[in-house]
């Protein structure tokens, strides 16, 4: 993760490369003049940044400005600025809506289930794969396990429908062979969460293991050598060398995923939804989409309010978890 990057080394290396003369106390005016000189000398770099910053403002920050309609009753006739203020009415409406509780519960259950199942397995795969030194076997396993990552969400959900099809699916064929009839998994609300989470594990485990394998490849071989001399078994070396070396990375990834618990993958959930499983499959992101862009009476303000609430809670959550991680383990994102 890029957020781990520390630029101390590079800045130490660069120190002095672009400095003017020896350091001494500058008067305010001199300092301003030098700053201005540095900016002017680099005007071409700012010119390169012009388009990216323009894009950033238009497509990322203008929407943040537009998010104020969460506090207004937006009407297309008036536009953003002229629509009347309504304070927190849109938020209250969501809190009092019968949809509030199920949507929040579904989102959290799906997120935490995904996290609990999806977080440790890539670490195990990386530890296990790291033990294998036979190149061909190792690279074959790696290649096969990453492959599903590159399949699109639509195709994955399509595959689920076919694989679990009550008549033509793989599970149906197996069940028939055993003289049983296959249930309709995809229509079963009780199965929805398991299918969602475990198909995600199936798709992403190999790819998520890459980062851990990369970290393991940087472990100092001298540590293993010393452990072997001391008579440590492979399991002991995993326990006392490999796992501790993965901890900082694992911690950072855990913090990041916890900060994103409200962001259940819209694309996949939406595709897996059916009238049968909506009771467990409606999450914040799909609800925001339906209220804002699909319902007969489009309610931009209400939808934006729910989205904004999600965004703010997510940000606070990330800051809190990161703070806790830093205090407890000295590993954090920033």
């Amino acid at each position, binding site marked *: 993760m890029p957020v781990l990057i*520390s630029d101390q080394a590079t800045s130490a290396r660069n120190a002095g490369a672009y400095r003017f003369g020896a350091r001494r106390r500058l008067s305010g005016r001199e300092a301003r003049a030098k700053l201005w000189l540095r900016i002017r000398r680099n005007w071409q770099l700012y010119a390169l940044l012009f388009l990216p910053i323009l894009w950033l403002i238009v497509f990322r920050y203008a929407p943040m400005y537009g998010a104020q309609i969460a506090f207004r009753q937006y009407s297309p006739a008036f536009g953003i600025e002229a629509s009347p203020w309504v304070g927190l009415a849109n938020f209250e409406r969501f809190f009092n809506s019968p949809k509030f509780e199920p949507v929040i519960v579904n989102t959290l259950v799906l997120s935490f289930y995904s996290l609990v199942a999806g977080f440790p397995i890539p670490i195990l795969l990386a530890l296990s794969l790291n033990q294998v030194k036979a190149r061909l076997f190792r690279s074959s396993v790696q290649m096969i396990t990453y492959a599903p990552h590159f399949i699109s969400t639509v195709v994955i959900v399509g595959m689920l429908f076919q694989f679990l099809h009550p008549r033509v699916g793989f599970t149906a064929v197996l069940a028939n062979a055993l003289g049983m009839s296959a249930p309709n998994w995809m229509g079963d609300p009780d199965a929805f969460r398991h299918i969602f989470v475990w198909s995600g594990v199936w798709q992403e485990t190999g790819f998520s293991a890459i980062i851990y394998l990369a970290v393991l490849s940087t472990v100092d071989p001298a540590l293993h050598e010393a452990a072997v001399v001391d008579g440590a078994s492979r399991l002991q070396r995993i326990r006392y060398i490999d796992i501790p070396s993965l901890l900082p990375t694992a911690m950072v990834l855990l913090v990041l995923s916890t900060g994103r618990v409200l962001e259940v993958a819209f694309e996949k959930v939406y595709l897996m939804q059916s009238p049968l499983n909506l009771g467990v499959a409606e999450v914040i992101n799909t609800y925001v989409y339906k209220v804002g862009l699909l319902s007969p009476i489009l309610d931009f303000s209400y939808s934006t309010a729910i989205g904004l609430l999600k965004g703010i809670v997510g940000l606070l959550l990330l800051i809190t978890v990161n703070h806790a991680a830093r205090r407890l383990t000295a590993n954090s994102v920033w």
Partner: protein
Amino acid sequence: MASMTSYESNINKVNESAVDRIFMMGNTTLLLIITVIILLPLIFIVAASFSSAEAVIAGRVTLWPVDFSLLGYETIFEHKKVWNGFANSLFYTFFGTIFNVFMTIIAAYPLSRQDLVGRRFITFGFIFTMLFSGGLIPTYMVVRDLGLLNTRWAMILPTGIGPFNLLITITFFRTTIPPELIEAARIDGASDFRTFRSVILPLARPIIAVLALFYAVNTHWNTYFQALIYLKDQDLFPLQIVLREILIQNSIDASMLIDIEDLVAREGLRELLKYSLIVVASVPVMIIYPFVQRHFVKGMMIGSVK
């Protein structure tokens, strides 16, 4: 890596204890089981796609084609909507990726320069969008107000710069391009533009490859959400939206099945078609994937530099 491997194999030969040998057998078995679990669904889909419609509907296909047939593929190749989606996806992926890579590189180079006043502030401006966004509707309103709804631009312009990709590119520039090189170019009289074009770009080739792959696969080829909210016109639909109609919503152009009288056979073809479509839709990425997986791994490694 290479040196470590040979050294590891040496100590293992000498010191492999009984416990370790049992452990390694368990380990290998575990990896084999994982590999089989990953492969099973893929093999099933491919086997079914090459079977006959009757075998598919009777549920006789497991891991090998039954009554080998190419009917599913033939039917798809006659389906104009699929082709149109394919062409659109290629268009969005090609031009979208060029736009993304261009924007990311011209943003990352200045931001990697330690002497750029305000670089921390601007970098934070980009990273912040990873943590917080205006949300679905406000973004939709911007795209609408710019008049991009239902145009090809809506599939390209809003994707712009991915903050994660920007960060790995900044890190790449910082760690691979020594400041002395830039200084030398300056002393030779090169402007920043000239340095960027003649020194930086040629050195940036590996990161350009990584970025192109990330953007092409993750931002364009495999996504449908942008198209779902911004496009109404069928002719503009990318492949993923067409796939959604056929695979998920089960809506297949009836004219494709019209020559078949028998209801069961028609139902069989409908299912067979889906298997073949899954294979066809995944083939482009799967074909390039073995050649590029090295770059993906490299990209993840750059991203994890500590």
